[in-house]
């Protein structure tokens, strides 16, 4: 498959270009990767993963803890490697994995958390050292009583998808390699039951139906497998690339030009399926291919593979939570092999239902028949709908409405919505006319909505309603922040109140869903009134925005971060990705109840 290889090479080259030539020194938090956990009620375990080529000084650790009633004992530091130092005499250094046990006592058993700060010093073999670097951790003592730490718990629960606990996923990576890969496969399976995967079904079915007149079960399965493999490749490559670059990958892939290009591909494929033009090969070639139809063709397989690649990019933001967790880990550890494998496994898990679609498409489909044309047109229409859906974040609502209305009305006409039924019409004709009329009415509603200045795509005629000021929910009062300094000022100004910081961008679909379905909920709004609400609009993605995201180790919106009444971030309570109101209310309650 030379084309597939070419595509792969392209994908791999992009991050290489981006990396630049200069030898790179790791940021201190990547060179000395830090984690802390409570072992029991009197000891904390600190671990450092020291990158190859870097070392830390044994006698340069300083530990402090808050609140004041927490007393730290003497840290148990393992033996280091001894060196003769011309100035200090003998010094001990650490390389590789380092584990430190830090005993503590606390007077007040009621304090729910310990804020730990560790200052350390280290150097790199290339001949530089780092200024003393502070790592901080918030350890929840309460979690000891309830067994596993809170952030680990939701990963395999049924509702794990929306919980979006990035810390939990990062924690998972500390387990063994195969366990991680297997977990991510399972996670992908769970994800496949969310609507995230649904957009892929029509694409895949379209690919299979459009692939030829004789689709066997095996061929369908094989096509689906190639498609899923393409998708998984993208996830693996994207994960590794983002890890290496620390870039806001999903932002790059969500820029209007890229999405516009996808939409254009969909429109082109849709038009072919609708029979506007013929994507078929010359007869001579076609008959040759017909002979080989039982086997896979290189070119065709490459096409299906690249469709898989493209589709994965589109649904990426939908699976933001697991992706953010994995990317967070990869970028910190630079363990690109494990990170890439985990994402690959996740995508394979997401692809299992698609394989079923592939197999069933082959099984359900008779060899040929006029009804195939209908199915093809149906998928063509769906592809057009996908194209509109894709570009909708960049279009004003009235334009979206107009596009939907055009699609619906034209579809309705094709379904003979306004042709009279013949006297002896059979069930299918009647049914399709019914569907056509529904489409026609919906299309007309959208047309009227577009012309009357409707502003809600889900309620196209709401523009016509006599305005009732009581029922229109007012805008959620977010204060905008654009930089780290501004954020600090706002947090200071909100002293004594819990602060919520929401990362938002125009292109971020789940941010909009969050706004429409979750923030508008009365229970959510009631809790919002007790907190200070900040929003960072990072649509422009300038240097300030990048710094702000980096500060919170986020790769991009969606992401919601909470700060306690004293202005410190509440660790382990982030919300990444869409969350329905019920779950979000629970998170808000936790944030509001978080006191030291």
């Amino acid at each position: 498959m030379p084309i597939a290889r070419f595509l792969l090479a392209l994908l791999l080259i992009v991050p290489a270009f981006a990396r630049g030539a200069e030898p790179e020194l790791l940021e201190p938090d990547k060179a000395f990767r830090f984690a802390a956990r409570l072992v029991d009620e009197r000891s904390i375990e600190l671990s450092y993963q020291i990158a190859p080529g870097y070392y830390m000084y044994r006698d340069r650790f300083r530990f402090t803890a808050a609140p004041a009633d927490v007393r730290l004992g003497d840290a148990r530091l393992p033996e280091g490697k001894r060196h003769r130092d011309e100035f200090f005499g003998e010094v001990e250094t650490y390389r590789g994995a380092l584990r430190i046990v830090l005993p503590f006592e606390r007077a007040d058993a009621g304090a729910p958390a310990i804020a730990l700060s560790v200052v350390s010093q280290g150097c790199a073999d290339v001949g530089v050292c780092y200024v003393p670097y502070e790592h901080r951790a918030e350890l929840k003592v309460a979690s000891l009583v309830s067994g596993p730490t809170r952030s680990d718990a939701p990963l395999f629960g049924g509702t794990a998808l929306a919980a979006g606990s990035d810390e939990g996923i990062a924690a998972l990576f500390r387990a063994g390699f195969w366990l991680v890969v297997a977990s991510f496969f399972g996670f992908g399976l769970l994800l496949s039951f969310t609507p995230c995967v649904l957009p892929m079904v029509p694409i895949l079915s379209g690919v299979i139906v459009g692939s030829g007149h004789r689709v066997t079960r095996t061929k369908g399965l094989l096509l689906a497998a190639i498609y899923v493999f393409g998708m998984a490749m993208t996830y693996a490559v994207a994960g590794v690339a983002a890890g290496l670059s620390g870039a806001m990958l999903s932002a790059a892939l969500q820029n209007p030009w890229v999405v516009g290009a996808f939409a254009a591909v969909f429109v082109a494929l849709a038009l072919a399926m609708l029979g506007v033009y013929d994507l078929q090969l010359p007869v001579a070639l076609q008959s040759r291919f017909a002979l080989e139809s039982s086997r896979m063709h290189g070119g065709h397989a490459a096409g299906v593979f690249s469709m898989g690649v493209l589709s994965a990019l589109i649904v990426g933001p939908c699976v933001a939570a697991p992706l953010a967790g994995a990317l967070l880990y990869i970028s910190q550890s630079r363990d690109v092999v494990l990170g890439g494998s985990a994402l690959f496994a996740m995508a394979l898990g997401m692809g299992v239902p698609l394989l079923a679609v592939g197999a069933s498409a082959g099984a359900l489909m008779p060899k040929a028949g006029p009804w195939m044309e209908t199915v093809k047109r149906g998928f063509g229409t769906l592809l057009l709908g996908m194209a509109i859906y894709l570009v909708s974040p960049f279009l004003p609502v009235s334009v979206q409405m107009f596009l939907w209305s055009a699609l619906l009305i034209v579809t309705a006409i094709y379904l003979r919505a306004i042709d009279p039924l013949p006297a002896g019409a059979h069930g299918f004709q009647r049914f399709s006319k019914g569907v056509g009329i529904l489409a026609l009415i919906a299309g007309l509603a959208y047309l009227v909505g577009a012309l009357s200045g409707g502003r809600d795509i889900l309620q196209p005629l709401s523009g016509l309603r006599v305005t009732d000021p009581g029922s229109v929910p007012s805008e959620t009062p977010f204060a905008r922040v654009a930089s780290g300094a501004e954020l600090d000022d706002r947090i200071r100004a909100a002293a004594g109140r819990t602060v919520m910081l929401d990362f938002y961008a125009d292109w971020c679909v789940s941010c909009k869903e969050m706004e429409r379905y979750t923030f508008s909920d009365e229970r959510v709004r009631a809790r919002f009134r007790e907190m200070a609400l900040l929003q960072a609009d990072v649509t422009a993605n300038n240097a300030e925005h990048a710094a702000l995201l980096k500060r919170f180790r986020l790769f991009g919106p969606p992401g919601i971060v909470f700060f306690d009444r004293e202005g410190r971030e509440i660790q382990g309570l982030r919300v990444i990705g869409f969350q329905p109101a019920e779950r979000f209310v629970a998170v808000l309650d936790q944030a509001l109840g978080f006191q030291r």
Partner: protein
Amino acid sequence: MKARAVGIVAVMAALSAAAGAAYHLWSRGSDGASSRDLAEAVERVLQARVVDLQGASQSLQQWRGRVLVVNYWATWCAPCREEIPLFVRMQERYGERGLLFIGIAIDQPDKVAEFAREFRVNYPLVLGGVDSIELLRQVGNRAGVLPYTLVLDRKGNLVSREPGGIKEAKLEKLILPLL
């Protein structure tokens, strides 16, 4: 089918190029300081209050008008110590022509004093605190690397920033045109 595959390859190529370009722009933007911000940061370094080895408050302002080599270092940082004898030699050689090294130590005062005696440091040493580290980051040393050396001309304009150890030949090439 070939036609479709070729079309898709073309789209992929365009996408890859666009993603690469977008990343390039983005990463350039995130690298931070524009030249004006940088000049302001250097100005803050000159004006910041630092403490000398006797505990008295000082500022780098007092040495304005000379060619300054501002060296961030620490005694516990072996690569930092290695270049100090070079600095001492060069201070000896070019001091009369207006060159002045200034060492800003991220360290404990007693260690710095002991080191200064032992290595016969013949230029001013001051102690940097948390704010010095912050300023160090603002002049572009985001990772907080030591040693880190700034070369400023007589007007206080930044001529060069050198992360890591610096070689004698390179340092001479930087300062000789300024003297």
